């Protein structure tokens, strides 16, 4: 498999968390992967798609496909974007043979970060060191949609200094769900509180995940309760090599 990859940075990471995007690049470069970051990228189209606005979603999706058409491999640090590209684009372009073909081709070349590291490159140790007691949240599209559960765990188990503890129902939804979290804030936060309770019960000081949406949601809820628990994207853990985070 290609050692040159194009990175697709999810919109929820690009502006709110540029430092995490930088971590993605750092990790890939550290293991000798060449990274290309197309400037024309924006979003996979998921926000509109999930709310039923398929015309708008298709416009944005076409732009994504054009931007990455020539990429040999696309790496994206988000289970939900990869799920969108791999499994929802075929639905979105079902009646558009030309775009459908491109979407299916690109879908096969698009990988979630941990999937790319472990399944494609067969790398499970990226030389990271991150002293913390951590637990891992399985995001919905990543775990159930793409079946990626062991890959992040393998990577994390090789991070020096990281003490590991599983939470109960780690793959239960955190209640984000995009616009759902705004349209039904009470239900959304109730679900988030269930998640936070499971996180707290582990005694971990850090919760790690692979999807910025969930992480932002959990962090935003934790912030209002004044909790000291840190919320980290897996890329930030894997990029870290020093002592104290």
């Amino acid at each position, binding site marked *: 498999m290609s050692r040159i990859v194009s990175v697709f940075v999810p919109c929820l990471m690009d*502006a*709110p968390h540029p430092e995490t995007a930088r971590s993605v690049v750092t990790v890939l470069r550290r293991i000798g992967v060449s990274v290309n970051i197309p400037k024309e990228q924006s979003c996979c189209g998921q926000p509109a798609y999930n709310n039923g606005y398929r015309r708008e979603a298709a416009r944005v999706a076409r732009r994504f496909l054009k931007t990455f058409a020539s990429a040999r491999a696309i790496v994206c640090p988000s289970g939900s974007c990869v799920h969108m590209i791999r499994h929802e684009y075929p639905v979105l372009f079902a009646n558009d043979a030309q775009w459908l073909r491109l979407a299916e081709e690109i879908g096969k070349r698009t990988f979630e970060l941990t999937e790319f590291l472990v399944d494609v490159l067969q790398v499970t140790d990226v030389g990271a060191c991150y002293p913390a007691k951590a637990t891992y949240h399985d995001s*919905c599209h990543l775990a*159930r949609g793409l079946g990626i559960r062991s890959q992040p765990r393998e990577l994390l188990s090789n991070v020096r200094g990281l003490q590991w503890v599983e939470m109960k129902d780690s793959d*239960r939804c955190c209640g984000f769900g995009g616009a759902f979290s705004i349209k039904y804030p009470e239900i959304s936060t109730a*679900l988030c509180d269930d998640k936070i309770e499971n996180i707290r019960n582990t005694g971990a000081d850090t919760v790690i995940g692979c999807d910025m949406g969930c992480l932002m949601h959990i962090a935003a809820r934790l912030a209002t309760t004044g909790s000291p628990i840190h919320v980290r994207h897996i890329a930030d853990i894997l990029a870290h090599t020093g002592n104290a985070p």
Partner: protein
Amino acid sequence: MTTPSPEHYPQQAKQALSDPILKKALKGLQDRLGSGALAAYRNLPEGEGLRHLAHEIRKAHVRNIDVLLATLGRNIRSHGGNVFFARDAAAATDYVLNLARERGVRGVVKGKSMTSEEIGINAALEKDGISVTETDLGEFIIQLAGEHPSHIIAPAIHKTREDIGRLFEKTIGIPYTDDPPALTLAARKYLRTRFLEADMGITGCNLACAQTGQIALVSNEGNIRLSTTLPRIHVAIMGMERICATLDEQLLLLRLLCRGASAQKMGGYVSFIAGPRKDGFRDGPEEFHLIVLDNDRSRILADPVFREVLCCIRCGGCLNVCPVYARIGGHTYGYAYSGPIGAVITPLLTGIERSKHLYCGETLCGACKDICPVGIDLPRMLLALRNIHAEGSRRWNIRPNHLLESLAYGIWAQLMTRPKLYNAAIRLGHELSPLIQRLHLPGWTPQRAIPSLAKRRFTQSPMSQTSTGENRHGS
């Protein structure tokens, strides 16, 4: 259920969220049954893959539904039973009412049936002066309380034993107790008399088999067996999609049904009923009537996107894993069917627009698809319903009428396809971040803090471009 009320979802949800007893009950239920079902699939001798086979089998049943139903009808009639194909709820209730009048029925005992809930048969019979008694313990409790079931297989899950103790004291006149065995015994004693007095038993049908011309009914309390054998008339009501082609397929699906519903290999009682009592037999009713209910299912069948939902065997498994259902309970969905399956079929049966909260108020987490014994892709259908809501549909006679929302997504699409505009918007967002964070953003705050934006997107920063340049030649 006489009047569906899916439009009250937001208010009902808020009410349910503040109910700690409901929360505890549903958590207990999900902890027991949700993970139990997944384990039960793993323990299948044929392996988990059996569910894929079941999915294909069910799709074939739905594809051949016309032939299968005709065969079922023929075979049941040849066994001396009656079959009535009811176009809608009114036709089905009229059939039962007329039958009850003609045969002088005064008392009816019922086995648990969501389809009977869908057509509102209890109210119709009671209006005619006929007494109706639910005989499933949970349904019995709900009936005494004058409520509707809140779970497909655990209808009274929202009630505590103290609630039930007080209810029994008030309604069936036993001294107060909250001891479950004592309560169960009291119900049993009360129900025994009703069974013996009843002229008619009404049940649902878990799955029918065309080849053999019988219906199968599963229960854990034995009440369905009594309802189908003691009264002189037995009426079974089935949604028209609950049909299998062969006995082997019916058995396979019953095994999956019990695993999905309650993590059991098989329910405590399984009855196969092919018609009335045969000459020379001592048990069974004098008459057997099967009502096959359409009630807009044909409309679903005609739609290639939603047809798959007719594969559902109503095990209730998806309710046992849905995180949203766990917090808002069954009543919030405002119809006989709740949870993820309700969020898809209630809109299709009662109106897509009026039920918009049902399919918008789910997180698309996919747990329902994961547990479904017949592999129905409910999240895909929630997305399809949202699409109809947003963009309209001629087939379902829905016009797009969400101007503001579609305008917002239009602007968003503009931003996402014009990098300069997008970058400018981010810069503006960054400048306004401190202000926005102090504002009360309805929908997000006060429950959650507002994240801030960087000045520049990572993908537009020189750093991101350098790393490209360096590496192109680097490795």
